[in-house]
């Protein structure tokens, strides 16, 4: 068999038993899958916590070797329009399954990126083709999924992976790849991963591509190379009162490195506490930052909201808060 060289794939669990974390969810899903009949699922939770993995395990358990013929995976954040639902989903949903199991499975990853029109269209499709098709949807925020869809699904909420889970995964891979891991490297990987298993594994592989001797120092070096490093520069401009350059730089960072507004916000939120300003103002800025993140999740224009936040930093630079 062709050995896969991307570790997130190579070590993706393909059986329920191999999955770490989310034990409650696993138990319930497994019992439904064993009955050879599943409802529609909605998996909600942060990135890298096992949503796609579980979806893949479900179809592999249901269909065995033939899983690829009975499974359609669509990523809604790449194809978010109503046309996708009307064409791809419908075309796949309406053809009958030919296996023992009378339905096929569509996995709609990042379904919260679907437009509302697309979700409305999906709702009918889910009903009309229940006899031939099951949906598994994943999302980061279930609030972005319209109620009628939520009510048609069994909803599972995935939690961030715990430290011990991530370390367990890392240990197993390190063993198989014959890496020598310094003790501090596990901690560093977990810190950098923020509970996102995919990120932890990618980071491990990136670091290992340089040397098989893994240490916290090396991990942090790779992290700092791959982090949006210019956030500090953006904030420094703003604090110095130079709004125009701060904004210029911000847009630059977001575009060149294709970083989403939410990732920028996360970086800003961390950076606040390293700035040379009064602690009370830091608290106020944190509040502003939180509000900005909330607004983004609610679906506002990221760049408009970030500019409003930058303007608050301009004031903070003068020792004021708004």
């Amino acid at each position: 068999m062709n050995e896969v060289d991307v570790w997130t794939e190579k070590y993706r669990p393909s059986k329920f038993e191999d999955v770490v974390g989310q034990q409650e969810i696993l138990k319930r899903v497994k019992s439904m899958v064993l009955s050879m009949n599943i409802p529609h699922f909605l998996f909600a939770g942060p990135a890298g916590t096992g949503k796609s993995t579980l979806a893949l395990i479900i179809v592999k358990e249901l269909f065995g070797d033939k899983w690829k013929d009975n499974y359609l995976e669509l990523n809604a954040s790449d194809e978010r329009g109503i046309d996708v639902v009307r064409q791809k989903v419908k075309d796949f949903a309406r053809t009958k399954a030919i296996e023992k199991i009378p339905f096929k499975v569509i996995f709609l990853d990042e379904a919260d990126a679907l437009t509302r029109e697309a979700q409305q269209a999906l709702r009918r499709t889910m009903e009309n083709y229940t006899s031939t098709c099951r949906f598994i949807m994943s999302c980061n925020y279930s609030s972005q999924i319209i109620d009628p869809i939520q009510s048609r699904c069994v909803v599972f909420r995935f939690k961030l992976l715990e430290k011990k889970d991530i370390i367990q995964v890392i240990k197993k891979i390190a063993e198989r790849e014959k890496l020598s891991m310094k003790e501090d490297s596990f901690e560093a990987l977990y810190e950098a991963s923020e509970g996102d298993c995919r990120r932890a594994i990618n980071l491990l592989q990136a670091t290992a591509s340089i040397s098989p001797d893994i240490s916290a120092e090396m991990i942090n070096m790779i992290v700092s190379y791959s982090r949006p490093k210019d956030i500090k520069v953006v904030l420094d401009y703003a604090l110095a009162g130079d709004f125009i350059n701060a904004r210029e730089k911000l847009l630059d960072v977001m575009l060149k490195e294709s970083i989403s507004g939410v990732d920028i916000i996360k970086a800003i939120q961390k950076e606040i506490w390293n700035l040379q300003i009064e602690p009370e103002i830091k608290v106020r800025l944190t509040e502003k930052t939180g509000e900005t993140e909330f607004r983004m999740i609610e679906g506002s224009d990221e760049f408009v909201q970030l500019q409003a936040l930058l303007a608050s930093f301009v004031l903070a630079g003068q020792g004021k808060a708004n």
Partner: protein
Amino acid sequence: MKEESLNFVEKYRPDSFSGIIGQEEAIKSIRVFLDEFPKKKAMLLHGPAGTGKTSMVLAAAKEKDCEVLELNSSDFRNRAKLESILKPATLQQSLFKKGKILLMDEVDGVTGTDIGGIPELVRIISETKYPIIMTCNDAWQSKMAPVRAKSKVIEIKQISIGDIVSILSRISEAESLNKEPLFLKQIAIKSQGDLRAAINDLQSYASGEASVVDSSEKRDVEQNIFVILRRLFKERAPFLDILDTTSISLDEILLWLEENIPKEYKNEALAKAYYALGNADVFRGRIYRKQSWRFLVYQNIFQSAGISLAKNESLSGFTKYERPKRILRIWINNQKIEKKKTISKKFASYVHCSTKRAMRDFELLKYILRKDEVQKKLRMSEEEIEYVREK
């Protein structure tokens, strides 16, 4: 046709470039465009109403001894129509004159009902054997983008009050109206740079004895974006309906405000203004997601009164406002990161994640993407391999 039956606007329409005042730059560009044709096949003149766009095209035709074929917004301009009328004209020779100029007046009036109008226009531009000149008020609407890309774009500036006065006094003399300079100046001011409106006003006062212009009966002109920005930024007032005086969409105005707030406001005013803009944006999001069109009221107020009242007092001085650059920069950037995108797409479908996610993690993934086996597996092209190596 008897001279008296002509209205002043037509009667005094300049028939050569020399009669057009205050537009030297634009005239130069038109000459260059016609001389260099077919280097660029089409030209888009944009600017406020009554600044002489159509006159310039007619004058240009005369200077070059060309026939003018005009299609304006009173004509249907859907795809079929354009194909049956405009297209043959772009391919046939003129019968009597040396050349031919095709004038598409008011192209921004090609509306939703003119289905396929803009794409057909773009097609015609690429095939035409004769220069096409288009005019419009607002070249920056998104629907104009494809036309913009194919054309030389020239902005026609508003005519200054001084120039309008001198034109009015020339007409007044020629018509023996004996109007006072002050009276003419009032008309000019009231016109807000719309020469056609000023001449029409002059004619309406021609017969009477009136010597005072009621400036309160301001012409209901469409406010252009610069006027709106100036008023919102300079004046401090609870503007509530200023955004209703324009056909520019709220969303587009929001982009203009976003670009220009820091040119006017500093510190507290800056923060307050962006806060208001942020609120407008939140409501805009709700409108789109929940189709709650009533929320337009809130979006409107936050991005008018909210912006104006962000400062403590009115501002003075001249500020040069700039076009929203963000959308353009996003577009340019998208061209640049095309390779990153195609690589991410291949990787994403392989590891069951979204292209977006892969792009976000690209800095990390490039270490993995440099491995031969991975490159082979993903069937990466030479250029793509080059790209990850360089990065």
